[in-house]
């Protein structure tokens, strides 16, 4: 039973990207088309979430070849929720770009690259086959290379080279790992892999492959020893691009780790998930250390991404209902709020012309809306109750205590305070305090409302937890019990 609806959130940005290439000299047309295609993708993914909620996991078999032989796309609740969030971030990112990226970038295929990035991210969430995961990683990486280097300033070129070198290496390692996995199991379909491994047992060789996957995805998702490339490269491009990267790219790595560690490599949890838990703890620690050490708006937000990745993966590592649910809540929350924070950091930079906190101050006098939005997203990020970060962190910590991981749970708790300190530092030094002279009062009218949309969503997410809970529970059920996923993919042979 194939349902072509699964492909829709993927097809719209793909067609949009191709179409936009032909209009590269007409920025207005590009803007209109980008918005139209983003809204279409948003609609399609909303319908997808609803369908999955009503009828269970939807799959599509490309060309009518039944799994495990053909290529399958699988939309379970976890993937669909992430696709929905991706299209929200995509739409707001496009809206934010109108005022911020500048004419030169618009003429050089900025909007097509954004659409291709969304294609890659959506495809990576939806694919049910580990080699296609690699292909979609490459699609999104290629688009991200373009977005990162577009503009061609010295700093962008310098950082892009490092970013690309790191990613080529991790892609090669991905291919190598896939080759090993194929040699051991003889299949690449994720559901089939799960079946084969539970039939034959997870040998030592497979545990090695599991750790190799952790390295590959960890490099994309920026976990502890492998985040070194991230602060520099995410800082170089303009804020709209940083927002897309920060909200989407690292989350794809996190998604891939979650998928692989809840569906395939689940028979040696003491070892693999133990390593993941400790890496998550170290990721949180080094993330907050970075966040409180810098006086640069963008750097602080970037290090907060690393912290969030740690919290999400800790929820995955404890692998009990509370932990997994918490990690899904926190993942969705973090995508939304990181988008908002980057948008607001971009506004601060465009007003003051610098990202150094010591050179700005008193912005709230002239920009009250941006200031209060930043305040709201800061407390949401730290997990103050009415907003969206609270429930996720609560559940992750609850899961940690239930699993007996007291030390790491305390690290997560403590990190909240330091995260709050790091973003409040931006608020106090940037928006409060003594007013520093700025050249005129540049208007930020068109730049604030994408952030307002995201902050409003975050508030709705926090206050409407009751409404969202059934969706999250459904998503976590699939992650906790792989047989639901396997059943849906491999049922009618």
């Amino acid at each position, binding site marked *: 039973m194939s349902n072509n609806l699964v492909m829709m959130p993927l097809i719209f940005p793909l067609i949009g990207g191709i179409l936009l290439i032909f209009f590269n000299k007409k920025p207005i047309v590009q803007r209109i088309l980008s918005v139209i295609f983003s809204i279409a993708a948003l609609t399609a993914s909303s319908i997808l979430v609803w369908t999955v909620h009503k009828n269970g996991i939807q799959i599509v078999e490309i060309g009518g070849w039944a799994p495990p032989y053909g290529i399958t796309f699988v939309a379970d609740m976890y993937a669909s929720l992430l696709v929905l969030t991706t299209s929200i971030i995509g739409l707001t990112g496009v809206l934010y770009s109108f005022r911020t990226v500048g004419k030169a970038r618009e003429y050089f295929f900025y909007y097509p690259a954004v659409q291709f990035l969304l294609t890659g991210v959506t495809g990576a969430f939806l694919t049910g086959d580990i080699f296609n995961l690699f292909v979609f990683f490459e699609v999104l990486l290629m688009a991200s*290379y373009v977005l990162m280097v577009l503009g061609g300033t*010295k700093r962008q070129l*310098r*950082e892009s*080279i490092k970013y690309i070198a790191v990613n080529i290496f991790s892609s090669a*390692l991905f*291919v190598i790992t896939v*080759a090993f996995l194929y*040699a051991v199991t003889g299949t690449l379909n994720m559901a089939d892999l799960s079946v084969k491994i539970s039939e034959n047992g997870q040998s030592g060789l497979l545990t090695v492959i599991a750790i190799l996957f952790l390295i590959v995805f960890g490099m994309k998702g920026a976990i502890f020893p492998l985040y070194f490339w991230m602060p520099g490269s995410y800082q170089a491009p303009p804020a709209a691009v940083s927002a897309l990267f920060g909200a989407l790219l690292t989350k794809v790595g996190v998604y891939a780790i979650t998928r692989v560690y809840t569906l395939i490599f689940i028979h040696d949890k003491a070892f693999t998930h133990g390593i993941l838990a400790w890496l998550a703890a170290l990721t949180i620690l080094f993330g907050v250390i970075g966040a409180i050490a810098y006086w640069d708006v963008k*750097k602080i937000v970037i290090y907060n991404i690393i912290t969030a990745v740690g919290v999400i993966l800790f929820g995955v590592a404890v692998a009990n209902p509370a932990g997994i649910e918490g990690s899904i809540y926190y993942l969705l929350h973090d995508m939304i709020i990181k988008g908002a924070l980057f948008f607001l950091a971009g506004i601060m930079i465009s007003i003051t012309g610098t990202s150094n906190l010591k050179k700005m101050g008193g912005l709230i006098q002239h920009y009250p809306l941006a200031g209060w939005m930043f305040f709201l997203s800061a407390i949401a990020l730290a997990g103050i109750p009415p907003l969206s970060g609270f429930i996720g962190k609560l559940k992750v910590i609850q899961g940690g205590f239930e699993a007996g991981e007291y030390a790491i749970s305390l690290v997560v708790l403590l990190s909240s305070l330091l995260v709050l300190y790091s973003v409040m530092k931006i608020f106090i030094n940037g928006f409060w305090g003594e007013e520093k002279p700025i050249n005129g009062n540049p208007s930020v009218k068109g730049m604030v409302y994408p952030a307002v949309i995201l902050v409003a969503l975050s508030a709705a997410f926090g206050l409407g937890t009751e409404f969202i809970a059934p969706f999250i529970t459904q998503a976590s059920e699939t992650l906790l019990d792989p047989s639901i996923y396997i059943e849906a993919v491999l049922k009618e042979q």
Partner: protein
Amino acid sequence: MEVMMSIVCGILFMAATYLMLSKSLLRIIIGTGLLSHGAHLLILTMGGLKGGAAPLLGEKAKSYVDPLPQALILTAIVISFGVTAFMLVLAYRSYQELGTDNMDHMRGTDSHE
């Protein structure tokens, strides 16, 4: 045969690692190219180098080769060519802009732009 191919893969990875650790950007790019070639060869080897007819199901041969590794390699080769081409252009542009291809001179800190 598989053993020999594994050794060839190992040699490619070794050369790639050596080149990628050097300072010159061009050598790093050649290194990444070799690394992906090694990875492709590894896929082929890992699929098993068995003899057999082409995988055409109507032909009634005794055994067929496994078509999947070849399909995977085809995809991976296209991707790695694309990425290598992109990186060569980027290296050329950054050589024009930064005036160096030495990675030591491309360090970035907050203090200098």
